[in-house]
Structure formats: structure tokens, C-alpha cells
């Protein structure tokens, strides 16, 4: 492929170029993959949080506490915004409080509010729900986790921004390194370029020869980088296993994600080729 009658089989420094491209492409792809996974998981969190509210029925509701809880549940389950409502079991309360109170504590003796987990329907709003509950059951509170949700969203946005910044920087570094290595390799062929110019080679011919040569190196590097990436993804998925911890997502990609991951590969080959083309053309233009 792309055999040139004019260029050396091994240009100075060109042997390293595919490796340099592979490593940089690999890092860039990895950064993008990580970014996509992070964005996907934070998106999922904030969606889930958006739809969860907690209703508190205070202990002061008196002896008929259980009855109040029942009527509150009834109101909740009828309400059009509510998908599900479920009172927390005593054992769940215990689990929630154990970090503060320790195990085997006399939770039953404590005047704890009864908590009800409420899952809203898609697009369900809670203002009318809140009004109704507060009117009918004084002391009942409805917590939409606004503060916590705000923090989670801020965290998600910060990590997206961070991920975007890191990915951009890795891409920038990759581009610089590839451009630099390509130019360094071209520099060793200055005599050849000058001679070709003097014996009447057209600029597009000279540029074309170098372009083909460096496209080949770029593609070699890109394929190598892709193989490294594929290996890493397979390894990560195996390590995470079939039942990942909730905070570890299995990386499952759609076509768009694959396209985004492939972007550094194609770009690297293209950047290598275009760098060669424009460096040669600029060198030649300076000779006339």
C-alpha cells in the first residue's frame, strides 16, 4: 500500500510515529470513553433523584399515628403525580440510623417520624401534592431533596466540565505531539524536497508523495491505538463483572458512542496526513 518510488522506506523518526500516534490516540479515546461513561451515569443519577421525594409523618401525630400514615398513603396513591408510595420498614430506618445511633439501639423507643418513599411519575409535579398534604395533615412534611439534588447536579456538572477539560487537553496534547513528530520526520527529507523542487516537480506531486506516506503511518498508529483501546475496554468490563457495584457502570455503548470513540483514530490519521501536506507545501512555497 502507498509504495513510493521516491521516499525512503524508513524516514528518520518515522518508525516511532505510529507508536506515538497509537499512544496518544489511545489516551484520547480512553478520556472520551471515560467521559461518556461519566456523563451517562451522572445523567442517570440526576434523573432518578428528580423523581424521588420523601414524606415525613411526625411522631406527634399521636396514638393514631398508624392511621395517619394510612390516610397519607391513600392520598398519595390517588394523586396523579405519584407513581409509587411505600412506607419505610422499621428495619430500613434502623439501617439508615445505625451510623449515628449504633446497632441494637432502642429505635422502637425513639419518637421517630414515619418516612414514606414516593416515586413521582415522569413529569409529575409536587406543588399541588404538597398543598393538599399540608392542608389535610398538619405537621406532615414533604421533602423533594432540593438541596441534596442541587448538590448532586452541581457535582455532575462539575465532573462533566472536568471531563470535557481533561479530554480537550489530552486531544490538544495528542495533536501537538503528532504534528511535532510528523514535522521532525519531514525535516530529515529537506534535501530531497529541495532537489525535487529544482528538477521541476510540481508542488502537488511532492506534497502527494509525503501525504500518502504519512497517511499510511497515521493509519498504522490509529489501528494500533484502537487495538489497545479495545483490549482495555474488554479488560474493564471483565473486571467489573456482571453485577457491578451501583457506582461502577458497565460500559455499554451505542453507535454514537462508538463513533465518538473512533473520532481520535480517524483524526490522528488525518492530522498526520494534513500536517505532512501543509508542511511540505509551505517549504516548497518558500523556495519560489
Amino acid at each position, binding site marked *: 500500500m502507498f509504495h513510493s518510488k*521516491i521516499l525512503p522506506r524508513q524516514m528518520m523518526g518515522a518508525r516511532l510515529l505510529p507508536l506515538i500516534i497509537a499512544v496518544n490516540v489511545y489516551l484520547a479515546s480512553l478520556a472520551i470513553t471515560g467521559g461518556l461513561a461519566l456523563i451517562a451515569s451522572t445523567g442517570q443519577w440526576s434523573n432518578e433523584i428528580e423523581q424521588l421525594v420523601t414524606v415525613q409523618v411526625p411522631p406527634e401525630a399521636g396514638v393514631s399515628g398508624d392511621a395517619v400514615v394510612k390516610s397519607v398513603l391513600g392520598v398519595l396513591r390517588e394523586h396523579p403525580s405519584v407513581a409509587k408510595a411505600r412506607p419505610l420498614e422499621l428495619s430500613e430506618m434502623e439501617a439508615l440510623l445505625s451510623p449515628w445511633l449504633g446497632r441494637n439501639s432502642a429505635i422502637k423507643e425513639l419518637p421517630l417520624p414515619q418516612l414514606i418513599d414516593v416515586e413521582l411519575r415522569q413529569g409529575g409535579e409536587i406543588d399541588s401534592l404538597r398543598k393538599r398534604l399540608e392542608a389535610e395533615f398538619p405537621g406532615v412534611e414533604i421533602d423533594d431533596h432540593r438541596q441534596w439534588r442541587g448538590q448532586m447536579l452541581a457535582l455532575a456538572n462539575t465532573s462533566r466540565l472536568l471531563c470535557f477539560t481533561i479530554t480537550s487537553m489530552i486531544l490538544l496534547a495528542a495533536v501537538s505531539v503528532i504534528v511535532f513528530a510528523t514535522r521532525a520526520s519531514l525535516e530529515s527529507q529537506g534535501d530531497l524536497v529541495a532537489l525535487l523542487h*529544482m528538477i*521541476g516537480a*510540481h508542488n502537488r506531486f511532492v506534497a502527494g508523495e509525503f501525504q500518502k506516506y504519512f497517511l499510511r503511518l497515521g493509519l498504522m498508529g490509529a489501528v494500533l491505538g484502537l487495538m489497545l483501546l479495545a483490549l482495555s475496554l474488554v479488560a474493564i468490563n471483565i473486571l467489573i463483572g456482571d453485577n457491578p457495584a451501583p457506582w461502577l457502570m458497565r460500559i455499554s455503548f451505542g453507535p454514537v458512542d462508538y463513533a465518538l470513540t473512533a473520532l481520535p483514530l480517524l483524526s490522528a490519521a488525518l492530522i498526520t496526513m494534513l500536517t505532512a501536506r501543509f508542511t511540505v507545501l509551505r517549504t516548497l512555497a518558500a523556495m519560489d
Partner: protein
Amino acid sequence: MIRVKNVGLQYADGPEILTDLSFTLPDGSFHFLTGRSGAGKSTLLRMLYLGQRPSRGQMEMFGKDIGQLEPYELPELRRKIGVVFQNFRLISHLSVFENVALPLAIEGRNEEDYARNVVELLDWVGLGDKMDQFPALLSGGEQQQVAIARAVVASPQLLLADEPTGSVDAEMGERLLGLLIELNRQGATLVIATHDTGVLASHRHHAGELHLDEGGRLRQFPPVRAKAG
């Protein structure tokens, strides 16, 4: 026909190396270009192979006013010019055959179409058995032969040689000169820069002389017909 009129040439904003040059080289003519070292011989040749444009004045080659040409028009003209560079300028990663074939390869032609011509030419200059060698393994004289073969392979109308006998003994020098003169007999306009007085003495009877003096000015002399002998 090459016409040079009132040409001056300077590098960047240095002094004028060539000053008020005016001369004419008829088609098929043969001139030596002489002058002391540093007089500007290589510079004048560079101007003639379109590697350096004059800073002022007019130069006409192959019926074209060089000053009026766009850069993209220059390659076609350069292909009509063969150059034997002073330091050969052979490409080290190409074999003797590939070096010589370079002017044909840049035209985008297929190797099968020109391979026979190149082989014949290499036989003619005496390098038939060194075709697959690389330049670094050749003697100075052999490298000069490769440079000459490359200069003439595309049948140039103008042949320029910068001190082609500078690095070889007198016998080899004569042999190399003979190759260039043969091309001139076949119709190429020939200019050879030299400070080799022996070469001048034995060839001035059929070659004119362009002499660059100290001030970068040029005087042109016809062949010395009345050679004793």
C-alpha cells in the same frame, strides 16, 4: 535562446552579487563560466536553473519572460533544464538507477516506460554495473557520473554544470566533460562553470566564455578560433 538584460541579483538585503548582467546564449551554444572563487558563478547558474529570481532586470528563457511567471508555471520550465550540481545532490536512500530516473518519476510516468532508457544511459556514462548501488558506496567520479546522467536523462534543452571536474583527476574530468559536450552536439545549450585552466585550454577552441569579474560584472567572449596546433 536565453536573453539576460541588465540583471542584478542580491541575496535578501545583502550587496548585489551580480550587477548589470547582459548576455545572450543562442540555442545549442556552449560556454564556460569563469571567475575567481566567490565571483558568483554558482549564483548565476542558480538564476539560470530558476532556483533564484533576479532582483532586477529581465531574463527571457524558452520564449518566456521569467519575471512575469507565476510560481506554478516554473516547474514546466525547470524540466527543460538539466543541472549538474557542484555537490552532486544525490539522494542517499535511492539507488543509482532511482537517482537517475528521478526527473522521469516526477512526471508521474510508469517505471516500465522509462526503465530501458535509464539503463541505456547508465551504460553510456559507464555505470551499467552499478545501477543498484547506493551513492555512498561510489567514488567521487562515479557520483559525478550519476549526477550527469540525472541531468541529461530527460533530454534538457539547457544543460548547466557547476564545476563538474572539480573533484576528479584530469582523465576522469575529460571523460565527464565529453559526456556533456556530446549532449551539446545533440542540440542542448551548455554552460559549464569551471576554474580549471587545463579544461579551458583544451576546449576554448569550440566554447565561448562568460567571465565574471570582481565587481560582479560579466564579459562574454567567443570561442578562440586561432588555436595553435
